[in-house]
């Protein structure tokens, strides 16, 4: 019996917002141990051609988690229990820099659901696509998450 409902392909989740905060960028890079000064020092960031301290490449992952609840709402809509969720792949396409003070509008959609047979049983591969746009309407990032639902 299928768990992820195939009729959910194309489902657009309600747009949510994520505010980018300077101190959260700093906390994020410090947790990773990334000492690249552009992420913490505005003066150095400006000399390198940025408007302010930009977000590091994986920062938007925090827009999916507890701060917005986006992933949880998506799995709830899809009928996937959290205990069955495995993060398979993640992809980012960078269209512009993201800076402190940006209020990102996040549009997430279920791009595809593929069912596969593996040695350990059936799995569903769910691709979630998210478009991030700033408050001025600039598209800054496209994310794709491949979630594996184990049966």
């Amino acid at each position, binding site marked *: 019996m299928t768990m992820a409902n195939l009729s959910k392909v194309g489902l657009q989740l309600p747009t949510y917002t994520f505010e980018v905060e300077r101190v959260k960028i700093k906390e994020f890079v410090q947790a990773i141990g*990334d000492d690249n000064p552009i992420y913490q020092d505005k003066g150095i960031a400006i000399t390198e051609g940025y408007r302010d301290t930009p977000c590091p490449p994986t920062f938007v992952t925090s827009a999916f988690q507890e701060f917005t609840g986006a992933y949880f709402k998506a799995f709830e809509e899809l009928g996937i229990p959290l205990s069955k969720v495995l993060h398979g792949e*993640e992809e980012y396409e960078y269209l512009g820099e993201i800076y402190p003070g940006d209020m990102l509008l996040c549009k997430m959609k279920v791009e595809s659901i593929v069912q596969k047979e593996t040695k350990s049983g059936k799995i569903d591969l769910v691709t979630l696509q998210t478009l991030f746009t700033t408050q001025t309407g600039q598209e800054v990032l496209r994310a794709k998450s491949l979630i594996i639902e184990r049966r």
Partner: protein
Amino acid sequence: MHRYIDFHQLEVGESLPALRKGPITKTQLVRYAGASGDFNPLHTDDSTAQKAGMKGVIAQGPLIMGFVGQAITQWVPKRQLKRFKVRFMGMTFPGDMITVRATVTEKKYEGNTLKIVCDTVAQDQNGEVKLSGQFEAFVTK
């Protein structure tokens, strides 16, 4: 100013200088949970992880992707990075020391810019692959 990789001097098949991270700590997993909002207790509570069959807490996959992101923006300026994709392959534990490596797989000149594509991999001290992926950048002349 930091010196980025001069891709004009590199051939397809050549490797970039590896990034070697120190041992992952349990405190780091707590910091990353707070920073990223991923409070799944698999990453912060040993007994939860053990009940799920692991020997103890495991690192968040995106933390390891963050290590690769760190390496990438040491090799190329952040604003030249266009695409970054990873597949999560193995669990990472406290004590693991991750090395991030990359190899140039494509170089294509398009007018004044050079498009580069690299394969990248994050491995632990035993060579076990934690994630593999790819990134694309448009580096200026």
